[in-house]
């Protein structure tokens, strides 16, 4: 039987557990920090010696921890890119701008166990020689911001923050910065611009890689809330033990936000790759299955920007056989292990680990119109393909979902989306185009049928002598 594995959420929602520091410390809080500060230097087989900070950095790399924000990039590798020889200060930013539709995991940590995040941050800052860090929290989470402020004050009071942390000679200050309500502020360079007091226009890369030219053009680490929490547990458990959680290359645990047409929507922490999508949807301990009488239509597996998976799809996955050889194996959607690599091989991504389940009562046209409206609203408008394309898609889908569709709209929408993905400054271009490309590709019949039905209805209403309203103007700019 698949089970939750509560590492991050161990105390969250436990009866009597409160977000204050006393409660946190009663449950072993800030012991990991003390453990980290007491890290011994390590001698390597080649005679090199690692400083305590390097040891922790190496351990994070060895733990296999991958970013929990969306891209799933190795956290230890990200840290290793930091320019430590520039002479400039190194900053760390906690990305708490959780706003991918369907995602509601970081807010559980912030609201219910803020000190876990702060402890993870203090350890990460110490390990990376960071003296000043920020928590960039989504503007729509005012209570979370207040709780974090309070938690920071408590930590400061106890000597975990400020000058000479626990007598270690290390200083650290953490500030909470509230966003003002834009999805794009979660893009790490957009976030940095916003933190600098500017419009959250993502930066071009090259040259503005945060690890080299980040906040105030200084080397900067940007990590997700959940990622930073894991650092604490890597220190407590040791890299090797941590890496035993989950599956190879997909280590540790992950909080999955499950929403949509399931009986038990909610957040569930699992060992990465140890639970399948089918189990997450149907197991009584997770989603509890669909509503009575409904059947599965589609799954959006990693936040609204990930490519949709269709019920009944079978994927070819690389699997290591008993002989150690890689073979292609057929894996149906519901048997897909929920991890980074399997979803990537299935042509989508685990993204922010937000699963949105769609049953047969849902119109894919309407669902996509809803998603596209979100992306049109949230496009920052900096670069041409996304600025113009995101709204174009939304307008076309609005038309199609409001009885003004055309048979050719499926091709029309794909064409627009194709011209966005891969051509923009940031990954928002993919976020805006992937839902469209995948919905139209996998549910093309539904889109074409809707367009054809609309055309037919219009023809009936206006008589055969009239062409469609849109066809006449379709050949001009």
């Amino acid at each position, binding site marked *: 039987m698949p089970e939750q594995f509560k590492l991050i959420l161990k105390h969250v929602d436990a009866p009597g557990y409160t977000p204050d520091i006393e409660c946190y410390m009663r449950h072993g809080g800030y012991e990991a920090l003390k453990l980290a500060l007491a890290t011994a230097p390590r001698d390597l087989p080649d005679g090199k010696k690692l400083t305590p900070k390097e040891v922790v950095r190496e351990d994070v790399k060895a733990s296999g921890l991958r970013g929990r924000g969306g891209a799933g990039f190795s956290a230890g590798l990200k840290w290793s890119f930091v320019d430590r020889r520039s002479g400039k200060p190194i900053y760390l930013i906690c990305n708490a701008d959780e706003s991918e539709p369907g995602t509601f995991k970081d807010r559980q940590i912030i609201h219910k166990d803020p000190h876990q995040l702060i402890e993870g941050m203090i350890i990460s800052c110490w390990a990376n020689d960071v003296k000043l860090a920020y928590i960039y929290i989504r503007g729509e989470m005012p209570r979370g911001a207040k709780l974090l402020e309070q938690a920071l004050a408590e930590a400061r009071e106890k000597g975990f923050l400020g000058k000479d942390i626990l007598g270690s000679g290390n200083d650290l200050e953490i500030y909470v910065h509230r966003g003002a309500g834009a999805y794009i502020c979660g893009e790490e360079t957009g976030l940095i611009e916003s933190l600098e007091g500017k419009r959250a226009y993502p930066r*071009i890369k090259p040259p503005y890689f945060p690890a080299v030219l980040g906040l105030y053009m200084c080397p900067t680490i940007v990590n997700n809330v959940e990622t930073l929490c894991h650092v604490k547990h890597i220190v407590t458990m040791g890299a090797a033990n941590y890496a035993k959680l989950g599956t190879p290359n997909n280590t540790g645990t992950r909080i999955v936000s499950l929403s949509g047409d399931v009986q038990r929507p909610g957040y569930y922490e699992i060992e990465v790759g140890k639970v399948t999508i089918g189990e997450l949807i149907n197991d009584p301990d997770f989603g509890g299955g669909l509503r009575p009488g409904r059947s599965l239509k589609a799954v959006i597996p990693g936040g609204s920007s990930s490519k949709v998976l269709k019920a009944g799809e079978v994927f070819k996955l690389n699997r290591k056989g008993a002989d150690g050889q890689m073979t292609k194996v057929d894996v149906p959607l519901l048997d897909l292990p929920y991890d980074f690599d399997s979803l990537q091989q299935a042509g989508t991504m685990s993204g922010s680990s937000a699963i949105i389940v769609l049953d047969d009562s849902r119109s894919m046209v309407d669902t996509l119109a809803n998603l596209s409206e979100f992306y049109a609203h949230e*496009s920052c408008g900096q670069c*041409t*393909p996304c600025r113009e394309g995101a709204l*174009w898609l939304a307008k076309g889908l609005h038309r199609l979902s409001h009885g003004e569709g055309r048979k050719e709209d499926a091709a029309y929408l794909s064409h627009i989306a194709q011209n966005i*993905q891969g051509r923009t400054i940031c990954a928002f271009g993919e976020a805006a185009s992937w839902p469209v490309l995948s919905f139209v590709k996998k549910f093309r019949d539904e889109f074409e049928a809707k367009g054809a039905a609309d055309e037919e209805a219009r023809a009936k209403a206006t008589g055969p002598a009239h062409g469609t309203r849109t066809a006449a103007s379709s050949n001009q700019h």
Partner: protein
Amino acid sequence: MSAPAIPSTEPASAPAAPPPVETLTVKVNGKTLQVPKTMPDWQGKPQATTMLQAARCAGVDIPHYCYHDKLPVAGNCRMCLVEFGTPMMGPDRKPVLNEDGSPKIAKSVLPYEPGTPRGAIACATPISPGMEIYADSPATKQMREAVLESLLINHPLDCPICDQAGECKLQEYSVQHGQAGSRFVEAKVHKPKAVDLGPRIVLDDERCILCTRCIRFTKDIVGDDALGIVNRGSYNTIAAWKEGAFDNNYTLNTVDLCPVGALTSKDFRFKMRVWFLKETKSVCTSCGTGCSITIGSREGAIQRYEPRENDAVNGPWMCDSGRLNYQWVGRGDRLKDVRVGGLRSTWTAALKEVSAKLASAPQGSVAIIASARQTTEELFLLKKLADKLGARTASVARIGEADKLLVAADKNPNTNGARLNGFAAADLSKVAAGIAAGSIKTLIVFGEDVTKHGIGSDLLAKLETLVVSDILPNATTAAATHLLPGAAHAEKRGTFVNVKGRLQKFIKAVEAPGDARAEWEFLHDIVLGVTGQDGFVSIEGLFNQMAKEVPAFAGLEWSKVGDTGVNVPL
């Protein structure tokens, strides 16, 4: 934009051998070439050479909107997306070779869709050894088509009433790289029209392609944070922080920078279709900086000044006050008639009389007020006259405020041209005293109203002969016994030497009104009449003669002074 490798016109002194340039080998559209490893960025600092710069070295211009040589890179328009490839590396970090020994190239593809080419923005992507840039591949062309299609879906397509038509990058690239049709069948976004951005600028937000050139120029070049973007996504609009607040002395440069018809000049708006304009290379006269300009004129009337790129003087910019300082040239009250004793005369009669009077004037009885607004050649002739007559000379200085960008404190355009010809700026008190004492009986004035500089009408009345040449009427021209109407810089050829010693020539754009003539022409006649010296009936001949006689100009030839001028020793 021209290739950055154009050699600048420096003085003939032998330059030190340049240090060897480190180069990389790249391929542009199949052509292999060596390009410098670093090239100047917008501030002139050496930075890793970009794909766009490398392509230019190969003579390939990659289309772009937001990129500008002299502005920080933004990378937002995506027009310069190009397909590219890099040498494939084996697991041993050594290049993988084809059967013929050439390096195998891995074309850039989308990481999540390996069959689809991935473009890079040429403006910001550094080249790497062995890189191949496919600036005209089908994939690159498709990316350009898509960007243009996107830029046009919400564009009003109002070229027939747009001032930018004819010099619009949206038009040009649409023809070169766009497609005839669009699939767009939705309603367009409507945005504010005729927004009053500042005293000299009107904005049409619907035409704007949001390249942010205007914002970057205003913030990073001028240092004024007046402009920004408001709203989000497709509704983005350029705005001043407060309506009408876009008011520094460089706002009109944003009209030049704007690749489309979004920013227009209130002065030039709706005045003229640009293809009717005759373009003439000239120099701005509003201060000692002497920005290189292009005069746009039609049928004898100046319509606008635009800065002409000259890195030795003004870069691509000029100030608003200088740019708008052209209306006086076409003023209705310009001096048009030669007058002797207040009556209309002819050049032949007047010059004959002036020459005769000067020739017979006793040594020391003549004073000459020269102007640092005259051309170098005119001052050279005037100096000849002064020397022959033993005349006292003076010239009025004009000192105002300078700014940090282009405006010089010296408000005369040719102070150095005057000084190098022997006219020092001096107040007119000694001349005034000479007139009062009766020792100065003849006064020659060029381009100054001396009544405002210490030689009042009462003193002028004491003179036997007052020869005045000017462009516009004033109290001095009213008192002249001999009035010789002159020509504005736009109406003649000549040179100015700016505050830093840059000698620039300017070309005649329009005709002078009525009988007005270029001063160097009639000065030549007077010099001939008084000294007997002849031989410079053309501006070329005159300049070359001056170069022979005045040490600072030694070795110069009119025909060899390029469009951006030459440095002369001060």
